């Protein structure tokens, strides 16, 4: 017996109308972008010169290959950012149950945060965010 057939009698949501607001938002988002693009294409001035085909880099003439090596510090900061950024996720369930968890929950969150601050202090002391080196 195929497994999926057996499971198909379990509904996940009451009805598809629950998704109506999302569909509406999606519709407006796409509609807004499409309208803006078409409108600017129709109304805006048109100049067809060779300069327009150049890459725009803050007004500075572009030179060299974009795939040249980047200083390792950028990677380091990016990696550390990913690490600290995602931890915020644990505040969501805490925020939802803020009142219910009371002071015990608060102490636990403080403990959790303090571990991160310890990690952050370590990073700074070890010189990982030091640019002038």
């Amino acid at each position, binding site marked *: *017996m195929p*497994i999926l057939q*057996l*499971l198909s*009698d*379990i509904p996940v949501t009451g009805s598809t109308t629950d998704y109506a607001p999302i569909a509406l938002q999606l519709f407006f988002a796409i509609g807004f972008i499409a309208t803006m693009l078409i409108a600017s294409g129709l109304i805006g001035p048109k100049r067809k010169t060779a300069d327009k085909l150049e890459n725009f880099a803050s007004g500075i003439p572009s030179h060299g290959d974009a795939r040249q090596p980047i200083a390792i510090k950028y990677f380091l900061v990016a990696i550390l950012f990913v690490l600290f950024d995602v931890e915020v996720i644990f505040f969501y369930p805490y925020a939802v149950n803020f009142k219910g968890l009371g002071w015990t929950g608060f102490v636990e969150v403080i403990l959790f945060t303090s571990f991160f601050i*310890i990690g952050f202090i*370590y990073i700074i*002391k*070890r010189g990982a965010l030091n640019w002038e080196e």
Partner: protein
Amino acid sequence: MNALILSAVWGIILMFCSILVKNKKAIGYIAAFGLLTILIGNIAETYGTQITHYNIYPMLLLDRFGLFFNTIAILSVFIFVLLSLIEIRKTGKYEPEFYTLIFFVICGITILTSYQNLLMLFLGIEILSIPLYILTGSDKKNLKSNEASLKYFLMGAFSTGIMLLGIALIYGGTGTFNLQPGTHSVVGTYHGISFLEITGLIILMCAMAFKASVAPFHFWAPDVYDGAPTPVTSFMATIVKVTAFLAFFKLCEVRVTDTLTAVNWKMIFAVMIVATLFIGNITAIFQQSVKRMLAYSSIAQAGFMMYAIFSLNDVAKEGLLYYAMAYSLATIGLFATMSKIKDYSFEGYNGLAKKQPTLAATNAIFLLSLSGIPLTAGFFAKYYMLASVIKTGSYTWLVIVGVCFATISIYYYFRLIQAMYFKTGNPDTIDHEITPFFKNMLIVVAVFIVLLGAFPQLLLNWFYF
């Protein structure tokens, strides 16, 4: 809880030692002291003294079996650190971080020995693995170390994905992450067990077999063990692997007996055992490098540890503890000696008995123990494993297979003894690193192995008191 809290705290302390402690020589001793406090804390907890009485029941349950295993694991780490103090000092600027990662691995070990929830299994495995990815690559300029690290990382992350799929499907089938099975779902069942649960369990078992390097999921192990710096290999191949087995055992103990009506687990495990023993032993014979030979031998030993998971009874439980101790100590000793020898091939060991008689003698004892010669711990370790299968009453042919492969393994272990004792040569040893302390430690470990082999009840009596 003691060991978990202490190891996390000591990890953080060691992290800040890199900034605060100026005397580089002190760091190793600080770490050793930390391990000692964790060991004492854990033994104290075995007899009922706890730092906190925080209610962790649905997630972790600290039973005697887990606590006793913790003691064995922490003791092995302690011996490992004492034997590799000099090697770890060579990592230079990042020496405190090396110890930090080891402490975090101990955190993972304590979680894995007491988990009661699949979430904790996942977290424990990850806390165990992520520091190891870094440790494998700790020799930053060495291409082999880099490569081993990347390979281990990609394979490890892949197996994590597979493991999560298994856990998710089990949740779909039972509606709970608890290790103890909940109510079985009523739709889509096969012999009373949900389809999703069966699929999930099989996938989860594959992922666990991967972590424990059991065939057919062993392919990463030889390359990674060969490429990693020798102390890290020693750590990975012993303590970490044994812990993975314990987690595997805890999972099977509950879930396999629960789903035995639907899946013929015994047959699956029997096939895995034979495959692991075959691949490990036969490939080990043809290796020219001792490090690679030990990597394959660790796969072969994993095959023997699979016997515990096959039989899942009291003898298997005791046997797993005993095997963990016997196997870890012997392998740690062998790797510690290897890191003092420059040439890792069999020829590099030629004539070691003339130049360093203590090293050769202790190594001979370790090798005898690994091959399961009587009067060493390895003999009783294998004996308990095979006895557990006999006690189950079925698949007794597995015992014969086990004995055959144990006999084959004698060949490649004795080849090293032969190189050390009966061949002439001048081994290239790093003499100034072979301190009297190092030699004495090796002798202590060897004596301990012989004692365990002569009086096997020593360890197990302690377990019951």
